[in-house]
Every structure is written in C-alpha cells, then in structure tokens.
C-alpha cells in the first residue's frame, strides 16, 4: 500500500469526524496523517467504560476508555461515508471477542471499497477479553488464519506490549499471513484516587501512553523488526521527527502518532515535516530519495 508519507495516527487517538466538527474543512486541507486509522469497532455497539477515564501521569496519560463505538453496522452506515471523504487511505481497526466475531467484522469491512487496510486489534488492554488473543502467539495465529481468507485487503496486527514475547506474537502473525504488525498498544497501568485511595479510573486499570512509554516501545519495535520480514508500524510516545527517525532506524517502515495529537491536533504534520528534514540531511544531497518522507508534498 503506497502512502504519501510515513506518519499515521494510532487507532483511537484521533476522531476525524469530531475533529471536522471542531476545525471544519481546514482539517481536510491540512490533514495531519498519511493514512487514517479508525477507532476500533466491535460487532455490537459499546458505551465504553464509566468515567473517570483519564489520569495524567508523569510525561503521559493513563486511559480507560473501553472501546466505545457504534458497532459494525452503525459504523458502516454513519461513520464510513464521512471517513471516505478524508484525503488519505483509510485503515479500519476491528476487535472481536471471539474468532467468529472477528471473522464477521473482517468480512464485512473487507468488502467496502472505502477501506484500504484492516487492523486487527488483538491487544487492547482495557477490555478484559482483549488481552487473550494478542498475548499468545498461537491465539494470534488462529485469529489471522481465520480472517486472512476473508478479504483481499492487507491485514495489520496491532501487538500488545503486555505479552511476554511480542516478537513471537509478531512472527506468528506473519506466518499466518498478516501483511504488517503495528506496535505498541498501551501498557497496563493504574492510579489511585488522591483521597479515597481506591482506583481512580472507572474501569479500574487503564493503558499508559505518551513519552513515558517511548523507550519501551522503541525496544519492542527494534526486537520485532528483527523477528519478521513484514512491515512494522512503530508507535509509542513519538513527539518529534527525531523520535520518529529513531523508530524508523529501529526497523519501522512507518510510524504512528497518538497521545501527542492530544497536545496538538496538528502534531502529525509537524512530526512528518521534522522527519523529512532529518531524512533529507541524513541521505545527503547526492543520493536519490529512499524514504517515503522524501516524496511528501505538504500544503
């Protein structure tokens, strides 16, 4: 899948439909990502976890959102037409609570022309059953084997860092036919209420993201990239072009921006521009461009 550049958003960290209500069509003119990854959809609609859902942690955030979404048919009916208006390819993230559910999601999403790729969320730590598939190589292999024949579209497996050996899970995904892996999802975390001393988050525990997890993410991307041949999409606390360049040096073919977009909605653009400058200076002026960033056209 050719992209205009290497910077995506992490699933669940940017709602392009809500952002368009806030920023208007300027969002489309200055869209900050080279592909848009949807928030994870499930077969049935979900309300998500009770609030509070957020806790600011040193250089990061713990979230306990719980995958609120309109469900498969609600997504296709009301969200997909709006996401199709975005100026970049669409990746739809799906999560099933069983292999049957996952198969239904992939089959239905896979038949839509608006969708370029499908990401299998086997790693969200916020929903109890979400951990199961992505934490175990055999489970992940079964999920990919079941869904791989159902669509022609590339499948990305989103890896959880809360696994003993993410590289084994990645290798299993590759062997089962996945085209790419993306990592990391959030790390499990918790905060206590300052006064009551019981868990602050409505969901009990949550997922840690932001610069606090960047060193962990970089190590996992480095290790996974050496265990598989397929494309690796790296993410975890990326705030600058230098951070993005680190992930690419570690073996990522593309990177994703997540929590930094909460601080600046246009962070993806800034990071891509900084990365393009770094890539150009590291290539030198005599070499032909080798990085997708070199082909990037920005308005």
């Amino acid at each position, binding site marked *: 899948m050719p992209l205009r550049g290497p910077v995506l958003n992490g699933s*669940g960290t940017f709602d392009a439909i809500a952002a368009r209500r806030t920023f208007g069509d300027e969002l489309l003119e200055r869209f900050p990502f080279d592909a848009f990854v949807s928030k994870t959809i499930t077969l049935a609609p979900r309300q998500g976890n009770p*609030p*509070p859902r957020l806790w600011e942690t*040193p250089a990061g955030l713990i979230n306990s959102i719980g995958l609120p979404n309109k469900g498969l048919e609600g997504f296709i009916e009301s969200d997909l037409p709006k996401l199709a208006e975005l100026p970049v390819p669409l990746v739809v993230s799906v999560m099933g609570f069983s292999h049957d559910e996952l198969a239904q999601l992939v089959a239905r999403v896979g038949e839509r022309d608006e969708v370029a790729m499908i990401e299998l969320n086997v790693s969200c730590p916020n929903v109890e059953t979400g951990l199961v598939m992505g934490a175990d190589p055999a489970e992940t292999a079964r999920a990919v084997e079941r869904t791989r024949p159902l669509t022609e579209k590339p499948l990305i497996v989103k890896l959880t860092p809360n696994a003993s050996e993410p590289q084994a899970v990645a290798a299993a995904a590759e062997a089962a036919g996945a085209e790419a892996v993306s990592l990391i999802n959030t790390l499990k975390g918790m905060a206590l209420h300052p006064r009551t001393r019981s868990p602050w988050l409505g969901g009990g525990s949550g997922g840690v993201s932001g610069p606090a997890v960047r060193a962990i993410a970089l190590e996992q991307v480095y290790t996974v990239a050496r265990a598989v041949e397929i494309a690796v999409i790296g993410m975890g606390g990326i705030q600058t072009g230098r951070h993005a360049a680190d992930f690419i040096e570690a073996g990522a073919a593309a990177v994703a921006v997540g929590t930094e977009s*909460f601080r600046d909605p246009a962070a993806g653009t800034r990071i891509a521009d900084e990365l393009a400058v770094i890539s150009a200076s590291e290539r030198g002026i005599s070499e032909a461009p080798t990085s997708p960033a070199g082909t990037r056209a920005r308005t």
Partner: protein
Amino acid sequence: MRTLAPFGRRLARVAAVERIGEYSIVWAEDAQGPADPRPGQFYMLAAEARWGAGLDERPWLPRAFSFCRVEAGRMGFILEDVGPGTHRLAELAPGDGLWLTGPLGVGFAPPAAGAPLLVGGGIGVAPILCWSDELGPQARVLLGFRSAGHAEAASLFRGQITLATDDGSAGRRAYVTELLREELDADPAATVYACGPPPMLEAVRALCAERGVTAQLAMESGMACGFGACFGCVVPTRNGYVRLCVDGPVVDAGELETALVTGSGH
C-alpha cells in the same frame, strides 16, 4: 452555537496577568484565532515553557478553560491556582508564550422563550461573564462564591448582579441556588444558564427540573485533547455518554439524570 477553531495549536502571547482576589486572569493576544468565539466555548491552554517539567513532570497535557471575555484584541481566561496546570498558568508573565487550541465545543444558545437568568459559581463565572456581556441588561445575573476574596471577580460584571457567599463575607450568606429559587418564584418562565462546581450545577438542574424550567449547563470534565479524539471527557446523559468537548461543554439540563459528574481533573 459553535465558532470553528483554526486547525492545530498556535502560540499566543500573554499580554497581562491580572490578579483579582483569589483568582487570576490570563489575558492572551490571540492574533491567529477567530475574534468571535461563542460564550461557553473553551480553549486548551499550555504554557510554551516549563509545561511538563514540574513535580511529577506535570502538567503535561493542555488544560481546558472557557474564555471569560474578549476585549481590545485580548482574550481572558480566569483561573484559580489549585493544581500543577493552573499553578503554571497563574505564574505566566507578560510576553510569555501560551499555546492555544480553540475555540472548542458548543456555547450557550439564546433563550427560545423567557428572560435569560444567569447563574455563576466560583471560577465558573468565566462563561457567564461573556454571556452577560452579550445579552446585556435583559439578563439577570446571580453569582455565588466561597468568600469575599473569591467574590472580587463579581466586579468584572458590567451590569447589576446579585451576590452570595458561603460565609457571608460579601453579599448574602447563601448558596447561589437559593437566589435562583427566589428568582424562579418571581419569574417561572425564565431560561437558566449556569456554570459552576458539580454540586451547584446539580442543585440548579434539580431545581429547574422540579419547576419545568429550561436550563443550559456549562459543564466540566477532565480532558486530554478538547476536540473529540480521546473520548475521555464523557458524562452520562439520558442518551448515553456524550463527550463534553464536542457535544458540550454546554448541555441541556433536561438531558441529564444528574450533573454530579466525576473525574474533573486531579
């Protein structure tokens, strides 16, 4: 009632930081932003320098504030120093950089019928101030504060206001909701606009529900992004959870079972 925001955050300059009793007003020169945000809309604020280098590396995420007034090309944000974010913002000095994203969310809608009756509690006077500026003398304004030191913010209002404090050190010794009850006794057809701490908003909601009075509440919840990305700022309504940042912060009181929401920062 929504004015669109320019995409992305932008660097504004602090023009002045005004001390008003227990509160501070940060006045920012926002040359790149729209001049006509709607009262009730808000901005995400972060200091350009030393934002993320304090105790525990906090603050790190931007903080949400309703603007309180736009005046002479400057936009005011009233705040109380209660945590790492508000502390850093309160110590800003003229010339300092201030990151702004906004205006965000939906503001107050004009009354469909009846006279506007505005109720502000504590730091929640922010959107009430610009809304009273816009509505002019037709709007009655009721304000409640903890003490005379906090109530100095009442002097920002240009028209008549009725004041109450918890300790009686300024105005009447009462909760502002007692003033509201008396006003609604006199004018049961008013449309109420309120902003303040959750217990106050809940008292306003319950009173208006009991009287069949239309009310719009400007609510607060802990936010990471302010533009619908993180799904963190939800409040429960009769139609499920809604994100305060894109479907609020102004919410029709009739949509709520309760305005006592959890999770407004830590």
